[in-house]
């Protein structure tokens, strides 16, 4: 069992969820409530990271993050180490790739709040921020939850992008997904099976727990 890889994957999923949670809430809310020209196109654009095969998407990220590309060089200049073949690069790639999962369900969650409840929040003197925190978030929580669980699960299983921008460096970019795949490729079915089982068990536990906790969080926020 490659515990390092599992730990790395969980860290990656954790960071991705943590970074996408605010994005999911803010962009989801924006798309839910604001009307603007071309909104339909924006909604479709949000879906795009899904449409490209992860490997291809990863390839373009490799080009964009790499040496010689403006973004890659900017990062290198700022942080002092390259973005590709690094954990930070994986996180960034994962954040971009999970945008559709993070935004769409959250948007639906916000849309499902009856307008008069939001109006009541304003009439109770809540600033938009307080209304977001005390009223909208708890009520949109099932949607945001779905967004985060999809993101979490998907990051654990993400393979193509990680393969492309990661380079399979143990402890840095060799995630559990890559590790299992390597076992499979090496015809080590038993090793792959054990790792898969552990991954599935941990995910199952994590997601079940999250659902259970989220019910509480929903209540606490109230």
């Amino acid at each position: 069992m490659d515990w390092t890889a599992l730990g790395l994957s969980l860290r990656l999923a954790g960071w991705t969820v943590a970074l996408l949670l605010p994005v999911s809430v803010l962009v989801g809310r924006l798309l839910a409530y604001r009307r603007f020209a071309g909104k339909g196109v924006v909604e479709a654009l949000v879906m795009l990271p899904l449409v490209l095969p992860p490997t291809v998407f990863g390839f373009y990220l490799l080009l964009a993050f790499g040496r010689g590309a403006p973004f890659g060089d900017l990062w290198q200049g700022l942080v002092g180490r390259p973005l590709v073949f690094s954990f930070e690069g994986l996180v960034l790639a994962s954040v971009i790739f999970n945008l559709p999962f993070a935004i769409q369900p959250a948007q639906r969650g916000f849309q499902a709040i009856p307008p008069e409840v939001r109006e009541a929040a304003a009439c109770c003197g809540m600033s938009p921020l307080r209304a977001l925190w005390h009223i909208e978030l708890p009520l949109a929580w099932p949607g945001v939850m779905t967004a985060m669980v999809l993101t979490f699960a998907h990051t654990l299983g993400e393979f193509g992008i990680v393969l492309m921008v990661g380079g399979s460096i143990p402890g840095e970019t060799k995630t559990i997904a890559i590790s299992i795949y390597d076992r499979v490729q090496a015809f080590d079915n038993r090793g792959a099976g054990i790792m898969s089982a552990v991954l599935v068990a941990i995910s199952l536990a994590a997601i079940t727990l999250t659902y259970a906790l989220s019910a509480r969080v929903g209540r606490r926020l109230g």
Partner: protein
Amino acid sequence: QEDAPVVAAASDLQFAIEEIAARFTEETGMSVRLSLGSTGNFARQIRAGAPFQIFMAADEQFILDLHRDGIVPTEGTLYGIGRIGVMVPHDGPLAADGRLDSLAAALEAGTLGRFAIANPEHAPYGLRAKEALQHRGLWEGVQPHLVLGENVSQAAQFALSGNADGGIIAHSLALAPQIAAQGEFALIPEEWHQPLRQRMVLLEGAGEVAEAFYAYILTPAAREIMDRYGFSLPAGG
């Protein structure tokens, strides 16, 4: 086209096999469909009943195993010996040097960035790269710098994308014009690693077209292409 036989070919054959297939169609009017991928995957898929008619592996062991397990009818034919070499991007810090001195110097100086090879756990070219590095005594030192491609083609991708200082890739890829243009390549001495014996086999249920193509690969016309892409065949092999 729809019922043209499918040839499963290791990804190092990428350029050679496309050219051969085109020539084959030109000469005979028959056509084949190419599926390029990792040798290990193909072997597994063939066990699961994949409807390929020809399997061209990057490592003969896969075919010998299939034959041993009674999944393919014959041991097939050796069609080439692969070679590996160092590929570095233009203007990169490393020199394209087959004896890996430049790599060793960079390691010593602590200036080495990332270095790409195919995953030695399952990619034949990766394993040979590892052997070569071990032979040169660099394996331990280079490990922290390695980035691993899922297959040799991806390793080339890494080596040339500007994100690594270089890598060890297949000669066959380095000979392709679009890759050759991106950097410099030098062969690693053959004796530094086990030979990359590449074998192909006709699968159960292969039809006439497949048989014709199988035979065609061994004709001088095809051999010429193979040679051009670095799949030399030892005399009488």
